[in-house]
């Protein structure tokens, strides 16, 4: 396996006064899904277009399988895009849509037919070959787009917000399908999305992008549980940021003074007296109707029922905390609750206060 199957080196791209991509470095490993995750306008789609060759970088290199491809036009790059709205050709049948790339590669006759048909069968579209893409459902259109990209056996598959045009229920199903297809083909894939849930569930690696910069690269678990800063923490899910001060330092851990009392967290690189921020996911908080050891009293501002769990907005003085609790035990109308931290959840300490 190549650790740098696709490699972006010091990539820069400006549009007029906007620095869309600034000093982006990224290694995409072979056969895995690497996700560019960020809010809209962060530059993630620009990075995808730079890789596909629709845009030229102002400086920096794009390498595929070690070869610099900056000067190779999009039609010969071997990086094929599944577009956000699929960009299916409305005047061509499903079969011809999928055959399009093969025809451009001078594949003809029985080979063309065989490859298109086996790809359609692989994606469960065998019955749809003669139809117009306009006759298909959103999920089917998405698979045609995928088939059209995969059939040319690209080096890299580029997915531009592939699920954003599907409704919520379908999205989860297609997400699973997409992951299975990718696994079974072992196709190196770069996915662009603003949906953190999609990114967490589908990716082998996530690169969090903000304002043209890559903030952090890591496994889904790493970026979720060990974000490098408040932006990453916040973007990957609901986060409580507790302002804290380092009281004492031991090798591998710190003792913190926080609004909910003294807490021990795994961390290094801090000295006593540092102002830090503690990241606390809503699921790391436990609530109880009666007091106990290491508990803090909070008042309940509001609660909402979210199916599998109940979300609490808690006030600790004037400090707002969000906590998710399983649907057992607690009376939702309780005005005050006792709060403690799940020791298994672990605490993550960020170097500075959130902006």
């Amino acid at each position, binding site marked *: 396996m190549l650790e740098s199957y696709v490699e972006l080196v010091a990539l820069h791209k400006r549009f007029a006064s906007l620095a869309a991509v600034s000093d982006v470095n990224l290694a995409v490993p072979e056969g895995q899904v690497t996700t560019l995750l960020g809010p809209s306008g962060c530059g993630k789609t620009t990075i995808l277009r730079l890789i596909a060759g629709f845009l030229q970088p102002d400086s920096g290199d794009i390498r595929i399988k070690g070869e610099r491809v900056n000067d190779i036009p*999009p*039609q010969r790059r071997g990086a094929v895009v599944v577009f956000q709205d699929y960009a299916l050709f409305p*005047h061509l049948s499903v079969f011809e849509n999928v055959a399009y790339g093969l025809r451009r590669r001078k594949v003809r006759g029985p080979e063309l037919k065989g490859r298109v048909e086996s790809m359609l069968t692989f994606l469960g579209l065998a019955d749809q070959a003669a139809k117009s893409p306009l006759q298909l459902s959103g999920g089917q259109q998405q698979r045609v787009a995928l088939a*059209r990209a995969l059939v040319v056996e690209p080096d890299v598959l580029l997915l531009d917000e592939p699920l954003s045009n599907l409704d919520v229920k379908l999205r989860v199903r297609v997400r699973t399908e997409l992951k299975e297809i990718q696994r079974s083909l072992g196709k190196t894939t770069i996915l662009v999305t603003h949906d953190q849930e999609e990114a967490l569930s589908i990716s082998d690696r996530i690169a969090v992008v903000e304002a043209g910069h890559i903030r952090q690269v890591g496994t889904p678990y790493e970026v979720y549980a060990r974000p490098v800063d408040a932006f990453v923490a916040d973007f990957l899910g609901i986060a409580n940021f507790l302002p804290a001060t380092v009281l004492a330092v031991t090798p591998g851990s710190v003792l913190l003074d926080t609004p909910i009392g003294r807490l021990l967290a795994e961390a290094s690189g801090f000295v006593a007296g540092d102002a830090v921020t503690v990241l606390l996911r809503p699921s790391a908080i436990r609530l109880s109707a009666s007091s106990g050891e290491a508990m803090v009293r909070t008042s309940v501002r509001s609660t909402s029922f979210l199916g599998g769990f109940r979300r609490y907005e808690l006030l600790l003085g004037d400090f707002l905390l969000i906590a998710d609790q399983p649907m057992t035990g607690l009376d939702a109308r309780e005005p005050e609750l006792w709060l403690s931290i799940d020791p298994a959840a672990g605490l993550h300490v960020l170097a500075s206060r959130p902006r």
Partner: protein
Amino acid sequence: MREPLTLLTGLGVITVLIVFVLLPIVAVVAYPPFTDYLTLPENGRWVRAALNTGRMVVLSTTTATLVGFIYAVVISRPELRGRKVLRLIATLPLFSPPFTLGFSYLLMYGRFGLISHDVLGFESSILGWKSLWAVQTLTHFPFAALAIERALAATPARLEAAARNLGASGFEVFHTITLPLVRPAIAGAALLIATYVLADFANPLVIGGDFPLLATEAWYRIDGWGDMRGATVLAATLLPPALFFFVAERFWVSRRKYTVISGRGSAFDRLPLPQPLMWTLIAVCLFVAAIILSLYFGIVAGAFTETWGVDWTLTLNQWSVVLSKADHLRNSLLYAATAGLAATMLAMLAAFLVDQRAIPFRRVVDFVCVLPAAVPGVFIGIGYLLFFGRAGIPFAGTATLMVLAFTFANLPFSYQVVRSGLAQIDQNLADAAANLGASRLRILWDVHLRLLLPTCVAAWTATFISCITNLSIAIFLVTSGTQVATFSILGLIGDNRLEAASALTTALLAITLVVLMITWRVSRSTGLVSVVVDA
């Protein structure tokens, strides 16, 4: 039916359409004894006219569509500066009387033409089919240019990007994606142009020379011979091909237009064209635009010249003619404005009833409303003359008849503008009003009229321009008391008073332009919309 008033209105609309659209058409076709149609192939001149018409339609449609396509490709390139100026130049012929370019062609490239004679030194007559072909191309290519430009703009650049991404070269992208997607627009524009060239009447009169065409022959039969039977036979001969083009456009081409799957997707830049190709296309456009500008320059220059081709002295003398024909200009303005208003209101009513499914025979009504677009103006002129011109009809030979002919001949434009405007109004609004107790007509008044005012302004403007520049209908219906400017201009050209004709054309163009600018401002600033109602 719980809404008798609505139903009654619907039946009223149907009656009006039968009387003013269908019956005049029937009147023309049924006028000559059937045997007259059979003798048509025996008349050598008429056969020649039919063949000439066919040749002119094929040649002009081909070149106008081709030039329009090239023009569209150039003005749809967003990176090109000055494309808006090019587009503006192409829209000029759309707002001018139909013979403007033919007339000016005479001035600039004729025997004593400013460019052909004085600049290039040719010494020959240009009258004839080649000049007519050139003028028809210049007059009608804007339809293709604007329609194809719109189709190109509607073809998402990301489809081209996707094709490129799948391995297509620039030429392959054009050949396999872009061209197939705009092909219906090209075919539609070609059919539209064919209809116009088939029916055009003014340019052949001005520069055709002795090149008989069906439309002009029909006029000569009436004007020179008082031969209504011959005229109706010739006009009726125009109808089948015109209907064929119309039906082909409406039922074949427009159904093949591709709706592109839309969805959230970010914009792409269009792929650049190869430089040499781009420059060639730009050169073609600049050449065409230069000729058009030269022709408009000729008109304006003629208006201030003592004797064209002989005495180039700058003078205002010609404008005394304009003053003496001020009432013709006033008639043009008045009839066009009134017809615009009538057509817009009728279109509004019919479109609303059709849109709300509140009229019996909905599909038929829809078809009849757009039918006049297929019928050549010559045909409508003769039809109104025949059907309403007889004794006993109270408005025979009056301005009312001309206004009515203008109104119904232009109903399709207003109707289509209003229908597309209606389609953009959320049905929920009408439903909400109905839910709160409003009747259909009440909904028309409260919801649609208020939201459609800009659309109405557009519909009115389109009809106004079409009427004020009309010749083919007016020529059959004018009387000494109802002279219109286009007819006067034709007369002046016929008398070889080219400078005076230029001055009157310039005045007409100026009026059209002023009205266009006013409505353009009005339709963009909602507060002034009532201006239209007062027009």
